[in-house]
């Protein structure tokens, strides 16, 4: 799927790139007259980060549990007044929102006696929707999520480098 020499127009990479560039164009068009203040750049950084996640989640659509979870969070997020000074949260802010909505946060703990329950729980915090997955799904979703993250990083890096002359 990730053939660097022949661009498959329907590939995840290509879908993500198209969406993300489109989002960047919109964000750029939104800038106020007095731009480039630190606040404005911070706001833009936040929007770009959301755009990156959104572009990836929409490119994957609902085919994955994690992308479904991410889309759900992004949509419910857009109905809230965004507080731009809500501070940076490390990793995905989505986990906190998801946790609040999922009242049963105990049933997903698997007692399978294989000695990595803690590590699995940590992983659940990192993968969108992870708290609601059984172990099998969690591991499967993780692999796909990582592949998408690396694609995301690769494309964003190429764009940043491209415009860094």
């Amino acid at each position, binding site marked *: 799927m990730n053939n*660097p020499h022949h*661009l498959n*127009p329907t590939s995840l*990479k*290509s879908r993500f*790139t*198209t969406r993300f*560039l*489109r989002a*960047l*164009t919109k*964000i*750029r068009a939104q*800038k106020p007259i007095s*731009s*480039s203040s630190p606040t404005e*750049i*911070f706001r*833009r*950084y936040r929007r*770009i*980060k959301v755009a*990156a*996640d959104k572009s990836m989640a929409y490119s994957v659509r609902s085919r994955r549990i994690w992308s479904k979870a991410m889309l759900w969070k992004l949509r419910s997020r857009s109905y809230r007044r965004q507080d731009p000074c809500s501070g940076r949260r490390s*990793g*995905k802010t989505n986990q906190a929102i998801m946790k609040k909505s999922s009242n*049963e946060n105990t*049933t*997903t703990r*698997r007692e*399978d006696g*294989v*000695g*990595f329950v*803690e*590590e699995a729980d*940590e*992983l659940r915090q*990192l993968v969108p929707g992870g708290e*609601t997955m*059984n172990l*099998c*799904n969690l*591991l*499967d979703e*993780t*692999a796909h999520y*990582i*592949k998408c*993250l690396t694609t*995301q*990083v690769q*494309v*964003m*890096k*190429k764009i*940043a480098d*491209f*415009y*860094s002359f």
Partner: protein
Amino acid sequence: MSRQRETSSNKITDDELNALILSLQTLLPQLDQSRHGRVSAAKVLNEICSYIRRLQNEVDGLSGRLSQRLDSMDLTGFDAEIVRDLLQQ
């Protein structure tokens, strides 16, 4: 949400579990199987978590970079050509 689901037939078998952990291990170059042989599942998951965090931080950093450069980016000619160029570099 629903309680923990079992796989369609039974609880996940040890073999299935090992296969999933192994496939995650292949994503980690630092735990290359030809050099490390068997690695504990806990270690694999540990490394996976670090890897995910690192990737998420990279996205963070790149978003910052792009936010600084956004003004100077010429996105007006954006179409399939640019996309192709970008991905083929």
